[in-house]
Each structure stands twice: as structure tokens, then as C-alpha cells.
């Protein structure tokens, strides 16, 4: 039996990438697997009666230590603005390398709540902030202070107490550069520190509600039950800032997708499958079908996708009920799903199949990082014909696009001056297209190709570069794509029909986000760590927590 990896021209379309779901490869799950034998402790919690102050959580193993320093500040309602104009937040977080001294905490207190306007140092590793979900926070505190547990239907419809709006790492705002920590064994997987920050921040949200409820009524209050807390994650509100990342990091993107594709192929190649494995799959499927009812969204786009998923899963269930175990069972299942369901369901089933085979999937999570510097340089010894051939082979999809057509160049990406975050606008009615970011990959490779076709094909690409440097930034991508086939999104990222939220969904699914709730075509709310073990029980985690019933 020969089964190839799924082809990049199939996988790398945005409508499929925007249908990816969390899986065993997701970073927050691999973080828990990696750190489950570390010691997690609340080191310090200095909050006033209203819950304002700071807390420190320490994660350690041997002489290795990381600390999350959390600050909780008073925020007027009119200051609780979403990320576009926000300059203040209910809570802010910084992950510290080691255990901070009181002088460090004082320094961080003066800077971390300011976020982009503050400065941190190379002792700090990640930075983030969060706002309360006001209706949930107040309800929980109110109920706990009266000695009652909160209304879980309200809680689970939202899914969290606080919602982060950004998690920064890798040298931003003075944070430690990636190079400082990249060789640490425990940080080999992608985004380990960011996932640590979010996991510990979730614990802080529980500690704050318990603390405030207690001080509101010390004699009657109770603590939030572990069962309820476990089913609360931490929210995240994400805009376009995340989208350029996956375009700007083609080698990394390849590693993420390649790990998933290798896992799928390995499972499809399993010749024999037993009843236990089939039943495990069915058990995960049944649980998650129950949990889908908590995926709330007002987005027509996502409502349609969730509806398709629900309907497709019903059809799939009928098929699966009658499907007998035979040779290459999973390959047949996959082929049925690919043929008979939409991308949303197909990728959902792929994630579920991965659940059944931890021995196949989990080792692949260590292949999801890469040294991108190794792919930066252009091999100028190759001749122009070679490059044209590569473009024709790897970028066939873009050669037929007419970039004279307005709709095909409708959008431009730029950095906003006030927030220094990526944005997307209509080039024909908004100013600023002259400052366009180099994210129009399809258009620029198209132009590179046209330019190369006018030159002597036998000449080295160095000859072209001596005369033309305009498309150097995409020329290097052609070489990356030759070595790393899943490095390029195969869609026009400036077309009028682009749905940017698909780009966000791709990245967030690898983070391990659930409950995608797009608030527009370029802004999405999600939940992380819902159902995950609490800090005190992380050592008991068996990695099945994503597939536990929420209620």
C-alpha cells in the first residue's frame, strides 16, 4: 500500500487551512505533556480586597525555573476597550526567566501594565494582557460570595473569566530574543513559553475570583469548584496581527503542516486496526459532538461552517456505524470523509483520528520548530530556467491570476502607525498603499516570473539580481518552497474575496484554540485550555482532556 502525503495544492488552500481544528499536535496540549512532571506553585498572591495587586506563579524542575508575574489593575468601564485603541487592561502578565526579586517585581509593575508603551528586558520572556468577561466575572464573584456555585450554563456559553488580547514573545518590546532560550530542551516545541504564560494566567483568573468573593463576604463565600474551573479556559481576542505571521514564517508553517500530514499518512498506512481503537475514536466523536453545542457565534460565516460540520458529522456517523473493520480501515474512512464532507468536517475527523494514536502523533510535535535562518539565503548559482521551472511547478495556481484585475489586487497589508499592528485595507479607496507590506506573495511571484521569462534562461539568477532587487523577498520563498512544500498558502492574500479570519484560524488551531467565534471577517474570539487540568493537577493529565464532556 502506498499512500502519499496530501498534496500542498490540496492542503494549502485557505478554505481548508481555515477549517483546521486543534489536535494532539496543538501547542497548548504539547506544552502540558512536556511540563506535566514540572512543579507548579503559587509563589505569591498579593491582592487587595477588590482583587487588585499582583501574583507570582513558579514552574520549576531541578534548577530550571520560570515565573509568571501577574498584575491586576482597576479599570473603568469606559477604558475597557477592545484591542484597537486599548491602552489599559484588567490584567497584565509577564513570564520571567527564573524567580523575580522584589526589585524586579517593582520594575515590572511600572512597565508590564503599559504593555507596548512599557519596556521589559532580556530577563523577561513573554508579555500579555487580558480583560475580564464582565458579565461572567461579576456573576461568579457574586455567587461564590453568597456560598453558591455559579450558573454553569452562563459560564460554559462564554467559556472563560478573562480574555487575552495578545501574547508577545521573541524580542518584542525588549523581551529576550529567541536565540537566548532556543537550545533549552524543554522549549524545543513551538510556542512553549507563550502556552505556559496562558496556562498560568488561567490559574490567576481563578485565584482572583476566589479572592474577591472571599473578601466580599468572608463568612459565606465558597471557592469555585474544581469541576467548574476545569471547564473554564482563557479567552483570546485576535485580530489581523496574527495573519502576517504565517506568511512571514514559511519554514515554520511548513513544519506545522508537515507534522500533521505525516501523522495522517502514518494512520492511513495502518494495515490493521482493532475494535478498541475504533471504539476510542467513537467515544471521542460522541463527546465532541455534545460539546459542539457550546460553540456559540454570531458570525454568519462560522454559523454556516458549524452547521455544515454538524450535518456532515451526522452523515459520517451513519457511515461509521456500518463500517466494518478491515485492512487499511482508516485510509478508507479518510477517503470517504474527503469525498463526502466539507473541509470543516474532513479536518475535524483528521484531528479525531490523531487522538487514537498518541505513539504516532506525539513524537511529531518535536518536529514543529525549525531554524529559519537556514532557509534565508538565496542560492544564486541556480539558473533562470531552473527558477522558472520551480515557479511553474510550485506556484501553478498563481500563474493564471490576472493581477491587472482590480479585484485581484483589491487589498493591501500595512502596519498601523498608532498600534504598530498589521492591518488590511482597500487599496483603491484608502491611503497608504505605497507603504504596503511584502505580503502580496502571489502578485509578487507572478511579477518575478514575468521578469525572469524575459531574460536569458541559461544565465544564473545572480545575473538577474545584479539588475533587479525588487522581488528578492519572494525569490527566497521560491527556494524555501522547493525544500519545504507546505511553506506557502496557495491563495491570493490581497484579493477581494480573501477571508482573513481563515489565516487566523489556521494559526489558532495549531495553538489549540477551540470555539472559534469570528466577530467579523478579520477578528475572532477563541478559547484556550477549556477542559484542561488545573495547575495543581497537571501531573495527572492524560492528554484526553480536550475530549471530556463540558457539562
Amino acid at each position: 500500500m502506498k499512500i502519499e502525503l496530501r498534496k500542498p495544492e490540496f492542503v494549502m488552500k485557505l478554505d481548508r487551512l481555515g477549517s483546521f481544528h486543534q489536535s494532539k499536535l496543538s501547542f497548548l496540549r504539547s506544552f502540558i505533556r512536556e511540563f506535566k512532571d514540572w512543579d507548579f506553585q503559587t509563589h505569591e498572591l498579593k491582592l487587595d480586597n477588590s482583587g487588585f495587586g499582583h501574583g507570582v506563579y513558579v514552574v520549576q524542575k531541578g534548577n530550571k525555573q520560570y515565573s509568571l508575574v501577574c498584575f491586576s489593575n482597576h479599570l473603568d468601564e469606559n477604558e475597557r476597550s477592545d484591542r484597537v485603541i486599548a491602552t489599559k487592561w484588567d490584567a497584565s502578565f509577564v513570564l520571567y526567566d527564573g524567580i523575580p526579586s522584589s526589585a524586579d517585581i517593582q520594575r515590572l509593575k511600572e512597565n508590564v501594565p503599559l504593555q507596548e508603551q512599557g519596556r521589559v528586558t532580556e530577563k523577561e520572556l513573554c508579555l500579555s494582557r487580558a480583560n475580564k468577561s464582565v458579565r461572567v466575572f461579576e456573576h461568579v464573584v457574586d455567587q461564590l460570595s453568597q456560598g453558591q456555585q455559579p450558573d454553569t450554563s452562563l459560564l460554559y456559553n462564554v467559556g472563560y473569566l478573562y480574555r487575552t488580547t495578545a501574547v508577545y514573545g521573541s524580542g518584542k518590546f525588549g523581551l529576550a530574543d529567541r536565540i537566548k532560550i532556543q537550545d533549552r530542551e524543554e522549549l524545543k516545541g513551538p510556542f512553549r513559553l507563550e502556552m505556559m504564560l496562558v496556562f498560568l494566567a488561567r490559574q490567576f483568573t481563578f485565584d482572583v475570583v476566589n479572592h474577591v468573593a472571599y473578601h466580599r463576604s468572608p463568612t459565606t463565600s465558597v471557592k469555585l469548584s474544581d469541576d467548574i474551573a476545569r471547564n473554564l479556559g482563557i479567552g483570546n481576542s485576535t485580530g489581523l496581527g496574527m495573519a502576517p505571521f504565517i506568511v512571514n514564517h514559511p519554514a515554520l508553517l511548513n513544519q506545522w503542516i508537515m507534522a500533521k500530514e505525516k501523522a495522517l499518512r502514518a494512520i492511513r498506512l495502518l494495515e490493521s486496526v482493532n475494535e478498541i481503537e475504533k471504539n476510542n475514536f467513537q467515544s471521542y466523536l460522541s463527546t465532541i459532538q455534545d460539546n459542539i453545542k457550546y460553540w456559540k457565534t454570531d458570525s454568519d460565516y462560522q454559523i454556516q461552517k458549524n452547521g455544515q460540520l454538524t450535518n456532515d458529522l451526522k452523515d459520517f456517523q451513519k457511515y461509521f456505524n456500518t463500517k466494518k473493520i478491515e485492512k487499511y480501515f482508516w485510509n478508507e474512512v479518510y477517503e470517504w470523509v474527503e469525498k463526502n464532507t466539507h473541509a470543516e468536517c474532513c479536518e475535524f475527523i483528521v484531528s479525531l483520528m490523531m487522538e487514537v494514536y498518541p505513539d504516532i502523533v506525539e513524537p511529531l510535535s518535536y518536529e514543529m520548530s525549525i531554524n529559519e535562518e537556514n532557509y534565508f539565503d538565496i542560492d544564486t548559482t541556480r539558473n533562470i530556467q531552473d527558477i522558472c521551472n520551480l515557479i511553474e511547478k510550485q506556484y501553478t495556481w498563481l500563474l493564471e491570476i490576472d493581477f491587472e484585475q482590480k479585484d485581484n489586487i483589491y487589498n493591501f497589508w500595512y502596519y498601523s502607525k498608532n498600534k504598530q499592528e498589521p492591518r488590511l485595507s482597500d487599496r483603491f479607496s484608502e491611503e497608504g498603499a505605497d507603504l504596503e507590506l511584502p505580503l502580496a506573495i502571489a502578485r509578487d511571484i507572478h511579477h518575478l516570473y514575468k521578469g525572469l521569462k524575459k531574460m536569458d534562461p541559461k544565465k544564473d539568477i545572480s545575473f538577474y539580481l545584479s539588475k533587479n532587487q525588487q522581488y528578492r523577498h519572494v525569490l527566497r520563498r521560491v527556494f524555501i518552497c522547493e525544500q519545504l512544500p507546505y511553506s506557502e498558502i496557495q491563495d491570493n492574500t490581497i484579493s477581494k474575496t480573501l477571508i482573513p479570519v481563515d489565516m487566523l484560524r489556521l494559526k489558532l488551531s495549531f495553538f489549540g484554540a477551540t470555539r472559534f467565534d469570528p466577530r467579523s471577517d478579520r477578528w475572532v474570539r477563541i478559547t484556550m485550555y477549556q477542559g484542561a487540568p488545573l495547575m495543581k493537577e497537571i501531573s495527572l493529565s492524560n492528554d484526553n482532556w480536550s475530549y471530556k464532556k463540558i457539562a
Partner: protein
Amino acid sequence: MHSLYEIETTVKRSAKSQGLSWGISEEIGKSIRILEQSGLQGLESFKNIVDFGFDNLTKLTDINQKTTTHLCPIHFGIFFQDQSHLKEMHQTFKFESLKEPLISIPFFIKAAKKNLIYFHIHSSEINISITPGEMTSINQNQIPTSINNFSIKVTQQRQQQYSNETWEDLYQLSLETFVEETEEKKLSGAGAGLSDND
């Protein structure tokens, strides 16, 4: 002090703001990052060529070009990085003047390693060899046969090699690649709402 990430992105954006292509800007960002990481004053050198003006610098695009005064170290370095695999490049060339030669060095180092070649740069002011080995050689005669009463400081702390004024000037230039947001753009460009009170 700024992180290497901040140095790379600020240099990249300020190079773009001065009219260089994105591809070249990416190269210079990485080059200055390497210099700063090596404890060399890359950022100050870059600021000097920005102050001198890219319009006043000569791009090397042809090894036989007539004008070679005030050569731009970025294009000079990238030219050799791109072209020095060619056999016809393996000879001695003479140029009139090169601004801020430090900036070209990371490009020569890459070219030397990639093509297993040696660069010997010689003038009355400088005498340096760049080799495909791990060490860039300095004049052997500059190394004494013994040293006395010496110390070695081992630290993880990188030293800032540039003035705060230089950073601020380049940072302001980097902002010129950003687009001023109108109220309308805040909504349409980012797509987010304005209230988080739910």
C-alpha cells in the same frame, strides 16, 4: 537596550523607508543584527550611511562599472554575496571608496562560507581577511607572543553599541513605513469592535 529582534526589524523598516526594496531591507536587517550580536557598532554604521543619504551612495551592480566612489556597503556586500560563486569573480578588484565597510562584512562572511572562498580586503586603513573557516582572521603580527595581568569577563549581557539618539532616529525612520490610521481605518482595517465590556 534593545533586543536583536527590535534591532533587525527597525533596521529593516528604516531601510525600506529610505527606498530600498523589501528583499534588500531584509538582508540589511539581518546583517546589522549579526554585527550587534558580535559586539560591533552595526547600528551606528547604518545610521551613518542613512545620514549620508542613499542617493549620494553608489550601488555596485556591475564589477566593471566606472564609478566606484562612495560605494554603498549594503549593495557592495550583497553584490559579492550573490556573485562571488562565479569563476570570473575570483581575482583582485580595485575600487575608489566604500562607506562604512563594517556593514559589508557579514555578507562577505556568508559568501566565503557558501563558496569556500577567501576575501582579502586591503587598504591603508584596513587589512582584513575573511575566510570560510569559523574565525575571521586578523593580522598575525597584531597578536603578541604573551600577555600579562589579563582578565576575562564572561557574561550573557550584550553591550549596547549605539547611542540612544541613533536608535531614536532610526526608529522614527522605521515608523515611516507605517500608515497613519483614520478612525474609519481603525474599524475597517482591523475589523475589531471598540468595546470589550461583555
